């Protein structure tokens, strides 16, 4: 029977939906009954099923020649190549190393800045200034004074 011959009861779309399992139970039952007597719809259903089967078996035949080992080796090589260019991960985690280093660097900058900012109010031992010094053949004396507290330091060195 010519597959293009039209059925008066059902359209081609219904035959397609029947093959696809998209008709509800009631309509699918009615259509199943119908194709017992309608060669036109039966042919369409057979053709649509054959399209799916032929397509699937053709694809399966074509891909059956996949050389798994060679293919996987190729993927590994490509991945390793890309990995070398890729950022390193933080040990023991999936977090990229730069995701850890970046905040750590920013935190270090902030802490250093704060330290410098508050360092004026913190007690700092300043270097002393040399007030006077005497050097002889047998000894040296140096008199120093701290800048803020004005403490006098006498440094003596004998030979």
């Amino acid at each position, binding site marked *: 029977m*010519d*597959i*293009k011959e039209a059925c008066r009861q059902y359209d*081609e*779309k219904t035959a*397609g*939906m029947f093959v*696809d*399992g*998209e008709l509800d139970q009631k309509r699918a039952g009615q259509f199943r009954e119908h194709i017992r007597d309608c060669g036109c719809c*039966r*042919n369409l259903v*057979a*053709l*649509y099923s*054959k*399209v*799916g089967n*032929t*397509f*699937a078996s*053709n*694809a*399966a035949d*074509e*891909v059956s*020649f*996949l050389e*798994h080992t060679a*293919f*996987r080796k*190729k*993927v*590994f090589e*490509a*991945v390793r190549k*890309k*990995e070398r260019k*890729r950022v390193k*991960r933080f040990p023991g985690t*999936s977090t990229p190393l730069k995701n850890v280093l970046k905040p750590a660097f920013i935190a270090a900058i902030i802490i250093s800045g704060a330290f410098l900012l508050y360092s004026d109010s913190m007690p700092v031992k300043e270097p002393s200034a040399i007030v006077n010094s005497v050097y002889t053949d047998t000894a040296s004396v140096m008199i120093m004074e701290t800048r803020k507290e004005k403490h006098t330091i006498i440094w003596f060195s004998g030979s």
Partner: protein
Amino acid sequence: MTKKPTREEYFCEKELVRGLRQGRENALKALMERHEKHLYTLIYSITLDCEESLEILQDVFIKAFQTIDQFRGDSSVSTWLRKIALNMSLNLKRKWKQRLRQHHRPFDRNADASLVETGRNTDTPETRLAEKQGENGIMAGIAGLPENLRTVLVLKTMENMSYDEISRELKIKKGTVSSRLHKARQLIRDQIGDKFES
């Protein structure tokens, strides 16, 4: 098909995903062992070119390995991989390359050989010839389909997805899925003409 993983699959997948996130090669190997055949078939069904399909398949696994952090786990790994494979297969750049190749690659290359090798004993040579011509006609019809029609046909026939699932996957209306399938079948039917015997 947005298939939710079973409890057993979930734990296996969870381990697999963890391994991939840690950059382990044996996790990638396990991923390939599980999914390469299915994905290769899917990609081949869209491109109809083995060489092209292998390139895409390789890219799919590389991308999956590198973007595993983006996998949220609300679908199975297989669904996620299928999405990547579909996107890559439908990539615009490849599309033109693929079309160019198809112009030089008719679908009757094995016709004569398989007639001798694969026929059933009860068939007559005439029946086998008619059957083979029918199959070649179907494959030629499929190869000649516009990509949007073929993609819907692939998801229906190869992935056995429902119209709802296809509409979600391709972000088109359910009615459009039905129309595209109908149109695809009409074009295939026109291609095979009277070569088909039920």
